[in-house]
């Protein structure tokens, strides 16, 4: 906003070339991730056919089950099949249920995506002002208190917070459900939102505990910066100086942390999903891993890797929109 017109042109072309390089990097990472996911899974000991059969099964039945799901075929053949399916946006069929993986993941995303985004928004709403106050008033008792609580929040396991919230709001007060998600899903928006309330608060609390610390340290940097002092010396009010210069500079490192937090929550939701009995992506992944259901594991990992890469992409782009000085660089942000 303070740039002169000539540098806008140069900055925009830098941005476009950055976007192209960044997209190529995204595609390359995705392919590499696909190969790694496929190979690592096959290194795990165990046979998916074992999950299909119980004690009493004959050796013939075991062989038939292996043949049926294709786990007896050579690895390269399985890999090519998988790549072929991916090219047609088909994630294959589950070894265990023999149902298509794609729709299964989509239905789980109905829970995980709102859970992640809502928690994320709530965490930002909590952490940004709190972190800022903690920095601005770092010398006061409540500045110290906020700092202490946020350290504690990082140390406390997420399931414990979930259990406390369940005990208070579901078992004692009976105002919110203890868990579960309506069978009709978002067809009943009110019920769906209610059932996500406690999980969202749980995740948001944990997430904001660490976010507060980043916001606080970014704000401390800004508050002690030369440009802020200069702006104040030139007659800006504190609020105006903070808004015009401080926010923009302080936002860059915070956005990069936000991106990481968002990506972590997407998959890290498994614990919360178990505590609150939510049919999300994390619980699908945990179950599929236990059963050696390779197509489902591959599908979930692939979709979530994709999401994480896209989040990283968006966060990098956002940083460059905020701070044009970064546009010449392929990866990373300030600091």
């Amino acid at each position, binding site marked *: 906003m303070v740039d002169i017109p000539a540098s806008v042109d140069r900055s925009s072309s830098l941005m476009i070339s950055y976007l192209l390089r960044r997209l190529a990097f995204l595609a390359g990472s995705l392919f590499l991730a696909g190969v790694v996911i496929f190979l690592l899974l096959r290194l795990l000991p165990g046979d998916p056919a074992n999950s299909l059969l119980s*004690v*009493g099964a004959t050796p013939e039945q075991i062989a038939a089950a292996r043949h049926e799901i294709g786990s007896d075929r050579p690895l390269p053949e399985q890999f090519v099949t998988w790549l072929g399916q991916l090219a047609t946006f088909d994630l294959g069929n589950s070894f265990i249920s023999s149902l298509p993986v794609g729709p299964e993941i989509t239905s789980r995303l109905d829970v995980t995506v709102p859970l992640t985004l809502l928690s994320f928004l709530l965490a930002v709403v909590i952490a940004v002002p709190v972190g800022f106050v903690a920095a601005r008033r770092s010398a006061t008792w409540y500045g110290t208190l906020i700092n202490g609580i946020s350290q504690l929040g990082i140390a406390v396991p997420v399931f414990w917070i979930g259990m406390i919230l369940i005990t208070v709001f579901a078992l004692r007060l009976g105002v919110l*459900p203890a*868990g579960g998600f309506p*069978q009709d899903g978002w067809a009943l928006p009110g019920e769906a939102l209610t059932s996500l309330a406690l999980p969202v608060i749980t995740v948001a609390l944990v997430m904001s505990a660490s976010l507060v610390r980043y916001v606080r340290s970014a704000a401390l940097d800004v508050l002690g910066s030369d440009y802020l002092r200069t702006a104040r010396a030139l007659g800006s009010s504190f609020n105006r100086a903070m808004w015009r210069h401080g926010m923009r500079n302080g936002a860059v490192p915070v956005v990069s942390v936000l991106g990481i937090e968002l990506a972590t929550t997407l998959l890290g939701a498994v614990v919360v999903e178990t*505590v609150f*009995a939510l049919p999300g992506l994390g*619980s699908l992944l945990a179950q599929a891993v236990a059963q050696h259901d390779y197509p489902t594991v591959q599908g979930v990992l692939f979709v979530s890797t994709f999401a994480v890469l896209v989040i990283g992409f968006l966060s990098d782009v956002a940083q460059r929109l905020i701070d044009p000085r970064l546009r010449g660089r392929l990866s990373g942000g300030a600091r």
Partner: protein
Amino acid sequence: MRKSVPLLGGTLAVTLSLALTACGSGTDSKSSAPSGSYDKNATVGVGSLYEPQNLDNTGGGGQGVTEALNGNVYEGLFRLTDTGEVEKQLAKDYTVSPDGLTYTFTLRDGVTFHSGKKLTSADVKYSIEKVTAENSQSARKSSFDMIKSIATPDPATVEVTLSSKSISFVYNLSYVWIVNSEAKDLKTSEDGSGPYKLDKWTRGSALSLERYAGYWGTPATNEKVVFHYYKDATALNNALLTNAVDVVTSEQSPDALDQFKSNPAYKVNDGKSTTKLLLAFNDKVKPFDNVKVRKAVSSAIDNKKLLQSVWGDHGTLIGSMVPPTDPWYEDLTQVNPYDVTLAKKQLADAGYAKGFDFTLDTPNYDPHPTAATFIKSELAKVGINVKINIITPDEWYTKVYKNHDFSATLQEHVNDRDIVWYGDPDFYWGYDDKQVSEWVKQAEQSDTTDEQTALLKKVNNQIAQDAASDWLYLYPQIVVASTKLSGYPLNGLNSQFYAYGIKKS
């Protein structure tokens, strides 16, 4: 992750001539809660830890599909009641030829599938062949090895010819779902003849059933049943405490029972289970190929104390593979009594006065690790050093069940009438006694159930004498329900959960 092991009584028998009572639903043992007036249009919420993998019990549906659909959505020619008796269901009547090799079944009139199609003998033939098919994943498959041919002389008659006599044939048929032979997509949909049809299955979350208006028998006493699935026992208990479900099919968290016992809004029911916790020796390898060593180990472990520490006042000591609900049950808990002095003497007799070391392959889910730690401390007292090796269910299946590569292992065995596996020397525990194998074989070919019962009692005594395994205890079967409910099954035999008699006030 829990993987139960239904040990299937492949060649088992049933007290069929005595137990075949007139058909009809609602003759199960009912919970003792007062029935009185109830809501015919109620929705019953059922909480469970066992979600189906898919909806096909010959295609890897697992324990969950039996719980939700058996008897509720699908019916057999016969059904196993909650008390373990075999009743006629879709079979109106049947006769057995004098040589015991030909069974002729007459089908009930007026039965329709949920799609509206009428039940015919072709559907029965199709359904049995679905279980015995080459790609069948049914663990019951080997129970039907003796079927030679199935004929359908007319739409209401099915004639099955066996290659050898099988007194448990009718009992085994109670596990065969009669499915519409024209139905498609049985992994995600259904076409059975039961009192409910499938409303909706949301994977990872819930499965709902609704009353089928065209049902041939007594209609269900509730309009809708929703099975809610949980991965975590605490989440399941919370659901019951907040009325998100009305009943929990099988309580697996003993610590949680007190909060329900002390609350007048809930009833804790102690039903009969068939799940046995075994310390299974590999009877073919040293040192457990020696009967004295097995007896010594059995006598060195205080099963009562173990049961108490895991389940408190619930559960039963058995002393053999046979639960009290099987017809050939006898109290054999004193054959290898808890007696440390005796154990030491037997070890010395066997040449192990100084004890020995062995590895105990222990599945990684409760109660196995707890039991393993307990066993380790008990056996240390007689000089035996146990190395606990924690393995996943998948590893157990490959290492122990398929490859027999173990010294001793812990495992829960779920099914009733599974003593017959001691007659199979190729089974994973490798117990090999020619006389026992012969008795098991003769029992299956018995003419009467008395004869069968007598033979299996001999088997039971022999394996207890030989300490073929150490049968630690019989699990309790605990159903916790809201006091608003009555008529729910108490025993959950073989994971079944008949919901059609449940009344909600």
